[in-house]
């Protein structure tokens, strides 16, 4: 059981899962950090991203660049959808009770996932790996598909890019300021309402991108949205709601707990993840890297 290459394989698969989760959870965390809204529909954006990517691949047909065009197109499409929802509906609920936010985003889950069923049916769909990354290589006796390597590199790259945007750019400064004090930022002449839309669009983009990129490794099925959203909740709660690096850390922990949990207690790996979430909430409600809300 303690064969090192086996352990390496396990941790690698946990790491890959973590990178996907990070992509999805970072959008969730961003929206929570700035808008103070927990978006149940974020998982549905992810699912729609996956279906859209599948659809675009179908339209364009096989080719070297098809997958990448599809992934980007799907993410952009979901970003537009997110923007529309925020502009037309969601903004009218700001300032109301949290229960209304939660229920509204849940209504979106119901509507959008049924819309996906109408458009794509209930059959499983899948997308093949992009031709350039179809192969695999061997590392320490473990076969690693190139596509997984790509995901392993993309996760940290997006994290760094995101971090750079938040810390070093003007928009990033506004976003961080909005998270702290919306009203003061507004009185300083910043278009906070536009900023909120922007944040929502960016988060939807990340969710859609996550969904599109996951298609070569997981089948697309109805119900993948309600499954991923609780996973993303676990991740952001562990790391700290609204904390950026917390989300990254949360995703890493989640991936490892899940893939080693399967080894140690094959039946209760899901259990261990939720137990971890509960433990973090009990001991440190604001998460490992978060800050307590005032």
């Amino acid at each position, binding site marked *: 059981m303690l064969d090192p290459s086996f352990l390496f394989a396990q941790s690698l698969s946990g790491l890959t899962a973590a990178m996907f989760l990070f992509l999805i959870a970072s959008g969730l965390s961003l929206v929570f950090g700035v808008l103070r809204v927990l978006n149940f529909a974020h998982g549905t954006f992810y699912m729609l991203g996956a279906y859209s990517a599948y659809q675009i691949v179908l339209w364009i047909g096989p080719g070297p660049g098809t997958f990448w065009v599809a992934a980007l197109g799907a993410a952009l499409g979901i970003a537009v959808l997110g923007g529309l929802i925020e502009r037309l509906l969601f903004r009218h609920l700001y300032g109301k009770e*949290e229960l209304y936010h939660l229920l509204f985003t849940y209504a979106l889950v119901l509507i959008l996932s*049924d819309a996906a069923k109408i458009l794509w049916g209930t059959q499983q769909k899948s997308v093949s790996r992009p031709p350039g990354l179809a192969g695999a290589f061997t590392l320490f006796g473990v076969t690693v598909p190139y596509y997984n390597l790509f995901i392993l590199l993309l996760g940290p790259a997006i994290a760094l890019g995101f971090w750079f945007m938040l810390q070093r750019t003007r928009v990033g400064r506004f976003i961080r300021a909005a998270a702290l004090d919306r009203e003061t930022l507004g009185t300083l002449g910043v278009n906070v309402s536009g900023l909120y839309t922007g944040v929502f669009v960016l988060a939807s983009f990340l969710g859609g991108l996550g969904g599109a990129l996951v298609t070569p490794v997981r089948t697309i099925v109805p119900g993948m949205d309600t499954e991923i959203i*609780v996973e993303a*909740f676990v991740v952001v709660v562990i790391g700290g709601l609204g904390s950026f690096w917390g989300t990254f850390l949360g995703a890493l922990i989640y991936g490892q707990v899940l893939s080693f949990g399967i080894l140690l207690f094959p039946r209760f790996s899901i259990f261990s993840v939720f137990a971890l979430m509960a433990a973090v909430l009990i001991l440190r*409600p604001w998460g490992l890297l978060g800050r307590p809300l005032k």
Partner: protein
Amino acid sequence: MRLRRLPWPLVVLVAAFFVPALGSRFYTFVANDVAIWALFATSLNLMVGYTGLVSFGHAAYFGIGAYTTGLLMKKAGVSFLLAFPAAGLLAGAFALVFGFFCVRLTRIYFAMLTLAFAQIVWAICFKWNEVTGGEQGMPEIPYPSFDWMEGLAAVVPLVGGYRTSEYFYFLTLVLVAACLWLLHRIVDSPFGRMLTAIRENAERAEFIGINVRRYELAAFVLAGGFAGLAGGLFGIFNRGVFPDFVYWTKSSEVLIMTLLGGMGSFHGPSLGALVLILLNQQIVSYTEYWPLVLGTILVVLLFGFPGGLAGAAGALWTRAAGRFRRA
């Protein structure tokens, strides 16, 4: 207005007893479903509406109740007389443990922790094949025995000659009515007023000497216990217990019901259960896309009628009554 003086809950209860007399098994089935969900939603409202605690994991207690009664009756052959209260007690016990931690948190963190605990319960029900039947659940939960009813029928006229499912429906009505009456007594008691005070302003409640956490925990346990009783009934009614009773989407369904009916009134959630289930039955005969319709209703409700149906009806009533008086 005279109409207002009528004891409406009693009228509804009496009317409900005549549903099987309509002669359709389907009506009885729907009415039974409504009665159980009415209890489930009202138990949630004790937390959400009266105490202001938004739980996203109420299905956990419903599921614990369902599994308790199901396991006891199917695997241990325990009589319903014991298995039913056991559902409430065990669910209440779990609520005590989980609630102990939950009430220490506020708002979104509270909701998240209730969700986490519910998912833990779900994961156990989903994977513990030997006991819960795992993903396949536990089919064929037996009905309680109604032989004594047949015996009673020999003495008292009109109580015999029903199907088992109809006897179970009558039993459900009696038990749900008793539970709702108890819940009503609870929210109308000084204890219930304290809960409302906490909802309105927990800080002030603390200042006048209320131990807020203890009261919240009490509400949590009561809500969990009654949800467990509803679950115990539902497992038998549904002829099986399945892990999706506990999945987080169930918790949001019952929240929607509560909101649809109106959290501001005691009978709102029951009304929500009635409307939502009837609507579901109507709509699924036309289209399989019930969630789409439900989601749309929810959006309309959130933007148009935040007080729910009971709120909207109350406003209409006041307006109509005012016009009547002026005329």
